[in-house]
């Protein structure tokens, strides 16, 4: 007893590929890649994957902007700031417990800055990974070229030897 609904039928596009074996050009081309924004299951997605800056999210940026940020020092100073704020929170809870809200806000601001800084390291990491991949690929290709050259020379040598033994026979 089929109480549940059956699966929907496959999309009818397969009929367009009837003569694909004889003439590959008679069937439609695959759709081009999507650019810009697209809608998926009722939600809007974008193909432009860039990290939104902190100001766009309404969060104050604690480390200086500029083309080249010194990630290590900024991360270290943010870490020290974080520890100081945690101590301040502990102090405030002992002395003036009603003023905790501002301190907790400060701590969450520092955390948001930390995560944003770490996320902005990711493109750099991606490019460094690409460089490493290319270097190792070049290394492997050079190795393969050397190997092929060596084997060819060995084969030539063997052939000459064989020729020599045949002639001298």
């Amino acid at each position, binding site marked *: 007893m089929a109480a549940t609904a059956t699966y929907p039928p496959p999309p009818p596009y397969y009929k367009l590929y009837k003569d694909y074996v004889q003439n590959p050009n008679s069937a439609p081309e695959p759709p081009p890649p999507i650019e810009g924004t697209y809608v998926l299951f009722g939600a809007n997605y974008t193909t432009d994957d860039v990290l939104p800056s902190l100001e766009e999210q309404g969060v104050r940026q604690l480390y200086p902007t500029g083309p080249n940020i010194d990630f290590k020092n900024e*991360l270290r100073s943010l*870490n020290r700031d974080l520890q100081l704020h945690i101590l301040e929170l502990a102090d405030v*809870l002992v002395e003036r417990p009603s003023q905790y809200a501002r301190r907790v806000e400060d701590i969450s601001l520092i955390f948001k800055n930390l*995560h944003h800084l*770490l996320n902005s390291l990711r493109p750099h990491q991606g*490019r*460094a990974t690409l*460089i490493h991949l290319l270097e190792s690929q070049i290394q492997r290709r050079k190795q393969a070229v050397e190997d*092929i050259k060596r084997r060819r020379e060995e084969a030539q040598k063997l052939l000459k030897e064989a020729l020599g033994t045949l002639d001298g026979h």
Partner: protein
Amino acid sequence: MDIISQLQELVNSIAALAFNTFGTLQRDSPPVRLSPNYPEPHAANPTEDAANVAEQPKLMSAALVKAAKQFDALVAALPSSEGGEEAQLKRIAELQAENDAVGQELQRQLEAADEELKQVQELFSQAADNCLNLKKPE
């Protein structure tokens, strides 16, 4: 796990340790005497509180400081970014050009080796035929 993911995990764990510390202390600390007018508050469980209440802040703050030190160590272990984005992109372009050149060299060598292999196979089949023809069964 790569170092940036480790750093992110560590940041999240520092946050977790911090609010666990404060939450546990707030929940488990014994009542304190506020004003000299009122008598000492009666401690709820005199046996277990005395031991734990002194231990826990020490342990938890030690864990917090350890996590912060781990963070500093990981930050020091970050590979220093030589140059910036443009330098990296330039290096990538150079490597791509070199990769193409080496790839073409490899292709040439491969084709030449294929040629020679075909010739050797041809020779071998001729030699095998000659051997077969010479060795007539008596």
